[in-house]
Every structure is written in C-alpha cells, then in structure tokens.
C-alpha cells in the first residue's frame, strides 16, 4: 500500500488530466480550437463543492447519502451542456485563433465572476468538500476517474466510427466542402464543443472532492494552454494522444521533483522541445499509418 500512499494522488491526477486533454480533443475532432475547458471544469467543480458544502443542500445530502455525488456529476454535466450551448452557438461562428481567443475570454470572465460571488467563496474558495463513498485516501479516486476514462475512451472510439464522428472529421478537413456535401457545420461544431464541455464539467465535479477544496485558480488561462499542450504533445489526431499527453505532462513535475527549483523551468523546456520535435505528437512516434487496403464487406448491392 506504500506505493498507493505515495503515488496514488499522482496516478489519479494523471487520469484526470488525460480526461481534461480529451475534453479539448472533441472540438478539435470537428476542427475547432477551443480553450474553454477550464471554464467548464471550474463550473463543474463549483457545482460539486457548493452541493457538498452549502447549507442549502444539507437536507438533500442527508436524504441522498452518497448518491449526492452522482447527482453532482449529472448536474455539472447538464449545466455545462447548457452553458456550452449558450457560449458555443455564437462563438463557433468564429474560426481558428479567433475562436481560441473568444474561449480564453470566456474562461477569464468565469474566473473573475467566481472570484466575486459569495456562493463560490470569493477569492478564498470553498473548503472541506466531503469525500464520496467513504473514501479515506486520495488513490481511491481511481475508482471514479478510472471508469470515467474507460467510458470516455469507449465513447470516443464508437463516436469516431459513427455518422456523427464522420461529420466532425469532414469539418476538420474542409468545412466548406462538408457544408456543400450536406453536413450542417454549426450543428456539429456546437455538438463537438458541448461534448467537450460536458466532459470537463463532470471531471470538475469529480475533482472538487478529490482536491477537497475549490477556488478560482482551478479555471485559468494557464490551464487552457496546459490542456492544449496535452493534446498537441500527445497527438491531436488520435484519442490516445490527449490521454497520453495529459498523463505524462501531469507526471512531469513529480518526476522532476529532485530538480527542486529547476523543476518548472525544465517543465517549460519540455514543452518547447516537444512542440519542436514531435510534430505528430507522442502517439505519432509509435503508431504507423494504416496502409492495409480496406476489406470490402461481403454484401453486394447495386447503388441506390
């Protein structure tokens, strides 16, 4: 158990950051560079922290027991979806760097609002978020983040082979051609954006108890770029990229701990070197392009 005592927090953090990397991957599937995830992550965390500590929810907590936690995830997911729609519908008319900047603005606005509301605990934040399912150790959060990661990966793998996944990819390749081929761009861009928002919101809701406290530092510009780094350094064209990137970059400060003060400096250097020398991301290193000819299914039909 020593291993889990020492590294449990780190392992859970790696999974958690991998999930956050994935939350950026969904909009990217549809060709949209959104940096909004920290905003939804913060929102989800506040929802969980408020439902877990605010006196107004005390009766609910008592009657639901541990079931309050799944309810928190649900509320966080729904709230993120709603906010994602409100922000996404106008913002996704923007392209490329403009969308990225609009989403950075969104994250900053949410942060300042959270700093100033009393329900979010202002600048100090919220403390003593209750632990779910009688967890006594950080590593036990593997039991909620782990299954979530598995579910999300399954979801993503299935999505990529579906009609909606194809629509996303067509938008990433050439939005105008996709439009001319009958794919409604706005609809699918917003859908991809909202999927990412919901994931970030749920991860936030799970993270508030994990971190025990929640404050405005959870959703910042730095986080936006960190998640982008996960995706780009892990690999942006494969779902394993963000997971790998998130896990490794989250572990990096821990691995570099012996370097003490040099730790964050080296961390920055790793970002520079990785973006310069890993154009396809880490996943691109050991994943060869599929070259085998596709096999035609047995059925034969005349077109139309």
């Amino acid at each position, binding site marked *: 158990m020593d291993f889990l005592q020492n590294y449990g927090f780190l392992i859970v953090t790696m999974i958690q950051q991998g999930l956050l990397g994935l939350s950026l991957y969904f909009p990217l599937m549809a060709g949209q560079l959104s940096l909004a995830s920290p905003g939804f992550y913060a929102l989800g965390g506040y929802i969980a922290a408020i439902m877990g500590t605010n006196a107004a929810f005390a009766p609910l907590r008592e009657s639901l027991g541990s079931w309050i936690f799944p309810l928190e995830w649900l509320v966080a997911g729904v709230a993120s979806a709603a906010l994602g729609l409100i922000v996404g519908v106008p913002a996704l008319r923007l392209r490329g760097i403009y969308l990225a900047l609009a989403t950075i603005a969104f994250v900053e606005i949410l942060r300042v609002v959270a700093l100033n509301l009393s329900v979010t605990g202002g600048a100090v934040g919220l403390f003593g978020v209750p632990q779910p399912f009688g967890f006594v150790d950080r590593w036990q959060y593997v039991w909620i983040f782990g299954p979530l990661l598995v579910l999300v990966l399954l*979801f993503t793998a*299935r*999505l990529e*082979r*579906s*009609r*909606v*996944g*194809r*629509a996303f*990819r*067509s938008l990433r*390749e*050439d939005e*105008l*051609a*996709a*439009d*001319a*081929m*009958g*794919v*409604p*761009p706005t609809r699918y861009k917003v*859908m991809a954006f909202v*999927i990412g928002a919901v994931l970030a919101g749920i991860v936030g809701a799970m993270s508030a108890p994990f971190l025990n406290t929640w404050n405005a530092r959870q959703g910042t510009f730095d986080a936006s770029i960190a998640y982008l780094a996960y995706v780009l350094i892990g690999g942006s064209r494969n779902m394993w990229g963000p997971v790998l990137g998130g896990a490794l970059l989250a572990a990096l400060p821990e691995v570099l701990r012996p370097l003490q003060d040099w730790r964050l400096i080296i961390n920055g250097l790793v970002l520079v070197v990785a973006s310069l020398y890993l154009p396809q991301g880490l996943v691109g290193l050991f994943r060869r392009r*599929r*070259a*085998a*000819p*596709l096999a*035609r*299914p047995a*059925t*034969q*039909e*005349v*077109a*139309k």
Partner: protein
Amino acid sequence: MSAPAPSPAREPVLRAEGLTRRFGGLVAVGDVSFDVMPGEIFGLIGPNGAGKTTLFNLMTGLTPPSSGRLRFEGRDVTGLAPHRIATLGLGRTFQNIRLFRGLSALENVKIAQHARTRAGLLAGVLGGAREEERQVEARAWDLLDLVGLANRAGEDAGNFSYGDQRRLEIARALALDPKVLLLDEPAAGMNSAEKHGLTEFIRDVRARFDLTVMVIEHHVPLVMNLCDRIAVLNFGQLIAMGDPASVQRDPKVIEAYLGAE
C-alpha cells in the same frame, strides 16, 4: 446511350431568375437567367473569369447572390445554407478539387451520405445504427466501384492522381443522392483518353441515377459532344444559349472567345 431526351413540356428542375453577384465594383455574375430541364446535360462555357464558378457557388449557396432568385423544383432556394441546398438534391464538384484529403476515399464517399441517413450521437455510440452503417458502407463501395476506385478505397484521397481525385469527387457528389449534379471542369487535368471516357461516363451516370447534369468545361469538343444545351457566359453576362450547333455559330460567342484569347 439511352439517355432520355429532355421533354420541353415538363417543369424546369432549376430556374435562375436574374442571378447577380457583385464583389465590390466588379460584377462577377450579372442578371443571369436560365432554365434547366429534367434529364438535360446543360453546359456552361465561357472564357476564364467569365463567372462560371461564381454562378455554381451562387446556385449551391456557397456565395449569397446580391440579387436574383434560384428555384429548385419550383421551390425558392435563394439564400439557403449550402448543406440545405445539398440536402434538397444539388450535388457538386469543385474546380480546384475539395476532397477531404486526409481521409480515405471510402470515408469521403461515406460522409456525403450524411443527409440521407439519420443516426444521431447516441445511436451511433450505443450501436443502434448498425443497419444504416452497413448500408452506408455498401453504397460507398458501390460508388467507388462505379468510378473505378474500389481497389483503393482505403487510401487517403490526397494521395490520388488528379484524374482519380476528379472521379472520386464525382462519386462523393453522387453519394448525396442528388437530383442535379454540378460538375466544375471535370476534365481538367485528365489526359485525352480519360477525357474521351468522361463523356460516356457522364451520360451513363445520368441514365443510371436519373440525373440532370450541369457542367462547366473548357474543352470545347467535349462540351459540344456531351451537352444537350449550352449557355455561354462572358464578363458575367449570359451572351448565348441553345443547342451546341447554334451556340458554336453564334457570332457573339466567337467574338468572346477570339477577343479573350
């Protein structure tokens, strides 16, 4: 070929009424009106910069017209988004080829079946759309067969030769299940044997899918041979329209081409 002759008694499938597009002071397309009858192969020719591609963009919603209307099967489709027009049955190819270059040929053709399939996010993820997926897949293979690319279905579209890309674009446009197919310079970059085959191919496709075809083409013998009627654009204006023989004799057309050379 056994293509049905256009019947003048029927309603036009496409009707342009005074379509106009200005870019700043430049009139790219000026007050262009025409009817396209069902089953017709309708050619659009003119010197470079005459506004042919802009006219296609106006018709498919990629560029909003400054004024004028477009009717498709009697319905006013002016100002509709491209995907709405595509869904109604207007498929097109692009002069500068806009395939999804990083995706396989098969996937290119699958994507264009979007509008004729229904599976939503949950059905796709939870496996509730298997039958539909099977049909999409089968139809994509059939269309690749039709253009002779089935043996390269898994290759990225961007790796194909110019002629193969043009063929793949036609397969992709057909996957939409269109009523009207707009081809923008389908012969560009093809060798003469390929060009020759193209005439047969377009006629064959028209018959098989019961299509109306509009085609922009520079290669004059091909157009004359292929088209039932031809419209000529020059500086955005429609200067002549009629059967190939009469257009070929039209002094305004001769002047436009000679003047432009």
